């Protein structure tokens, strides 16, 4: 949500670019900025009627005649000697009209011609900030370096700093902007947001803004955006409402309000706001896609009980509902006990089989946004069917997101990003060691290259990553910091930290109060702990990689003795690695070729316990376990797959159902056979019959009768089912 007032950014340059006319663009924009709407309209109208293409472009822009403005900018920039400012302003128009790629091209073209153009750098910074690109700060700094009087660059820096929760820097940059331009209302909005985030009154700053322009809704909208960035979704709604009240024509704020309300699980009001925005020409990707998502809700089925609301796509609702609802209940019981609190309202879980639908829910949010996202008591996540089998563990994701629900509630949404993310990662590992965040190659490289961030700056790694894998590394770091706190001070300390954050304390205060350390000392101790744990692996990472490559080649050349001889040593160098071409699978393959089922099972069991998630590999392990008469282990292995890829996996449910049935665990068998039926199996009659058998064994004769009739409806001549029907209807109890 950065487009509230981009037309006002770079305003200072307009005067420089103006030509003789009834008015100059800067005057018109200044009138607009100061709330003199009618006068501004007249001013833009005058520009539009002028003889200069650039001035006409600004005039049309001010009158919201986007196409004509675009065309006039095209004309204005055609001469080879046209002023650089024209392209920069054109870029800003395109940015405002949702075309960042072409806007960035225009800024770059300007810089190619005039490398010292600060305004073009600011344009690049604005566009980068839209995509949470770590280069935004770099570009803004360059803009300031080239043009120290560019107040808009300082305002942007202030906003970026606050998004990174660096409040001191945000204030400092906002003050610099105000020193350059006493009417820098966006800088004032940053001040107001800082006050609100710290639970102080923002009113003095809003009074200053109102004194300049009573109808400057952008200020409230910018505050709303910062509140969202700090997980304060309900508070954000309040400020988006104030934004549209101050300026009812601020369509970007209507859209933001709609999206924020959607994040709170609402549908009707968001639709109205988004449609209002859309119908008035504000058709950015977030608005359009959110409306499409609202339309698609008719294809979802909602399951409600006392503590949960589950929203699933109809096509997979019957299959996933039993697993997801049960898991939600387990999580709620666990976290209620752990965090000693109850949620004030049912938690809503939305599961999207189409990743694009899920992506709509994370638009405008920083970070990966790849697996799940939490907005207060609303959790949205990918369905396992949205991803390639083995890429995603919905169980771990749900435990992660639900941790956010509790921590956001417990802290009244006063929690830094690193802590809620770190604790959520930590909770995944607490629930299952196999789900703990793996030290992936990119993490090892970050450790080796000393790229872990100081705790005070860790939020930045989530919001504005400076290198491609920094978000992943930051998740790992946040999680391992919580692991470290537990290891050194005990799990109870984490709860104390939650309570301290709830009192709006800063990270420095929390660490000092609860752990008795200054931040610098904490960083020192944590890094020493990490180094002890992973320093060796990180130091020998390149050697490991080379040895793994050699092992892969040996396997490809069917030199299985070599694989088995050298595998253990390579494994010992980096046992957490369960990605592509891992040693566990290479050794298991060699064992399989050698006909050593026991060794193959041992290798795959180790893979499983390290968190390996390839469904085919785990199914193979279950087969080996079953073959060795270890039915319980086989069932446990298949049960793990229910968290990884329970969809389109009829075979999994049938096998697990059979194993559980064989062990007389009829409730589990029923759950699995229900899943087979819900998987639209080729053999519908067989699926219903197995379910009937399980119901019968569990003493649920009525349900057995229903299922056996369903089997016979498909295949009336199905003899085992016929026999059961006769048995059920001859029974004296029937």
């Amino acid at each position, binding site marked *: 949500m950065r487009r509230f007032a981009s037309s006002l950014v770079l305003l200072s340059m307009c005067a420089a670019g103006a030509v003789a006319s009834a008015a100059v663009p800067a005057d018109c924009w200044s009138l607009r900025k100061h709330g003199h709407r009618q006068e501004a309209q007249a001013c833009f109208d005058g520009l539009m009627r002028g003889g200069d293409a650039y001035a006409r472009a600004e005039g049309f822009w001010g009158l919201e005649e986007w196409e004509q403005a675009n065309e006039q900018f095209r004309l204005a920039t055609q001469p080879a000697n046209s002023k650089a400012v024209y392209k920069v302003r054109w870029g800003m128009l395109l940015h405002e009209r949702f075309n960042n790629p072409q806007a960035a091209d225009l800024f770059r073209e300007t810089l190619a011609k005039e490398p010292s153009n600060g305004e073009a750098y600011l344009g690049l910074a604005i566009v980068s900030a839209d995509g949470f690109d770590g280069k935004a700060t770099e570009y803004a700094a360059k803009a300031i370096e080239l043009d120290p009087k560019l107040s808009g660059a300082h305002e942007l820096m202030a906003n970026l700093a606050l998004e990174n929760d660096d409040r001191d820097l945000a204030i400092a940059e906002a003050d610099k902007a105000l020193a350059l331009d006493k009417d820098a209302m966006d800088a004032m909005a940053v001040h107001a947001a800082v006050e609100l985030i710290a639970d102080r009154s923002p009113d003095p700053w809003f009074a200053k803004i109102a004194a300049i322009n009573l109808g400057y809704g952008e200020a409230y909208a910018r505050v709303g955006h910062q509140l969202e960035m700090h997980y304060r979704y309900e508070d954000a709604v309040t400020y988006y409402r104030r934004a549209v009240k101050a300026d009812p024509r601020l369509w970007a704020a209507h859209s933001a309000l709609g999206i924020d309300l959607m994040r709170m699980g609402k549908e009707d009001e968001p639709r109205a706001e988004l449609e209002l925005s859309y119908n008035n020409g504000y058709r950015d990707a977030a608005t359009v896609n959110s409306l499409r998502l609202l339309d698609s809700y008719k294809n979802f089925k909602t399951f409600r009980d006392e503590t949960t609301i589950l929203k699933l796509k109809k096509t997979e609702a019957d299959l996933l509902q039993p697993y997801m609802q049960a898991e939600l209940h387990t999580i709620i019981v666990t976290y209620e006990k752990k965090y000693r609190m109850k949620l004030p309202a049912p938690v809503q879980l939305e599961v999207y089989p189409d990743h694009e639908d899920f992506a709509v829910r994370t638009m405008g949010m920083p970070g990966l946004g790849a697996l799940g996202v939490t907005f207060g008591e609303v959790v949205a996540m990918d369905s396992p069917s949205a991803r390639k089998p083995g890429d995603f563990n919905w169980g771990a994701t749900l435990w992660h997101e639900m941790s956010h629900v509790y921590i956001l509630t417990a802290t009244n949404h006063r929690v830094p990003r690193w802590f809620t993310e770190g604790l959520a990662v930590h909770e995944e590992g607490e629930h299952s060691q196999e789900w703990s965040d793996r030290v992936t190659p990119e993490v090892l490289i970050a450790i080796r290259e000393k790229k872990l961030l100081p705790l005070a700056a860790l939020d930045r790694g989530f919001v504005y990553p400076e290198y491609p894998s920094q978000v992943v590394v930051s998740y790992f770091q946040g999680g391992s910091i919580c692991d470290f706190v537990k290891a050194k001070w005990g799990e109870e300390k984490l709860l104390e930290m939650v309570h301290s954050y709830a009192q709006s304390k800063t990270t420095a205060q929390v660490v000092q109060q609860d752990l008795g350390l200054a931040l610098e000392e904490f960083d020192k101790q944590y890094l020493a702990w990490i180094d002890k744990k992973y320093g060796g692996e990180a130091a020998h990472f390149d050697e490991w990689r080379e040895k793994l490559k050699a092992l892969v080649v040996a396997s490809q050349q069917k030199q299985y003795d070599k694989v088995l001889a050298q595998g253990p040593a390579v494994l010992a160098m980096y046992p957490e690695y369960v990605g592509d071409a891992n040693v566990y699978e290479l050794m298991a393959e060699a064992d399989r070729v050698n006909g050593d089922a026991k060794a193959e099972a041992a290798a795959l069991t180790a893979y499983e316990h390290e968190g390996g998630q390839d469904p085919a590999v785990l199914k193979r392990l279950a087969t080996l376990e079953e073959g060795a008469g270890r039915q319980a282990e086989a069932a446990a292995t298949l049960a793990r797959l229910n968290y990884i890829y329970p969809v389109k996996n009829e075979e999994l449910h049938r096998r697990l159902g059979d194993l559980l049935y064989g062990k007389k665990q009829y409730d589990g068998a029923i759950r699995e056979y229900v899943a087979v039926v819900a998987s639209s199996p080729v053999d519908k009659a067989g699926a219903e019959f197995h379910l009937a058998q399980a119901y019968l064994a569990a003493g649920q004769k009525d349900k057995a009768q229903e299922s056996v009739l369903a089997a*016979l409806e498909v*295949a009336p*001549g199905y003899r085992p089912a016929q026999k059961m*029907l006769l048995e059920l209807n001859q029974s004296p109890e029937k």
Partner: protein
Amino acid sequence: MRYAGQLGLRLRIVILSAVVAVTVQGRAAVYYVVVAGLGGEPDYEQRFTAAAKDLDKVFKAADNTAHVFTLTGAQATTSQLKETLSAVARDAKADDAFVLILIGHGSFDGVEYKFNLVGPDVTAGEIAAMCDRIPSRRQLVVDTTSASGGAIPALERPGRAVIAATKSGTEKNATVFARYWVEALQDPAADTDKSDSISAMEAFAYATTKTAAFYDSQKRLATEHAVFDDVGHGEPVRASGNGQGALMSSFTLLRLGTSQQAANDPAKKGLLAKKEELEQKIDTLKYQKAAMDPADYKTQLTAALLELAKVQEGLDK
């Protein structure tokens, strides 16, 4: 395999008539010819051969009177294929069923389909001509190769069902359909109507479902869309309807059990007639389901199914 609605009812009657005909005339023979074409690469070579051998095993195990001819590796040449099909043409009777399954790579140049074999390839027209010489009135040609959709126009003929792994000659990537076609004949779950046999339609439905699931689970765009034609002319289809599917539904590809033997006992003719009557009643009920009161439907269906189960119990004694 059943149709939904009225068509299903008609088909049921057709199938039952076919069963009665077989009972009267005795069991016809089935001629299976399976060909694993040129792989080109060791991986494909191994895969095609393994699939062909699996089918050979399945057909022989299911019916020791079946005539099974399997060509793999160096044997898979055009001349060997011609020789084999000539032998079938010589031995098979009109009542015998004939099944030809092609596994491997195919090509289509916009006009002509070719099945890749060791040595010269064989065209769809040549295959059709060889099959035309076989007197069997009921024929099934399953072409599981890439571009196999391009073979359909040449192979179509009344009394011959043609299945292709791809909807046209332009789907040229290597296919996975063959894998699931073989699996359909090994997995009892493919017998969806629990008739102790797998029809060509059941195998087709199984293989297409599993093929689609394969691409879906790999998050890959499907590069093959299997089709069939069993009316002998026109465009191939992907699902039953408008006359398509009747032949394949009644074409028993593989018998799994001995149910037919019980039905051959003249002493049980009365029960058989009753069974047929009940099966028709159930089909009618299912057809009327949408228009019926759910409770009434359930009551009537339960009663009919119960009665059918009792009749079957009598037949099994």
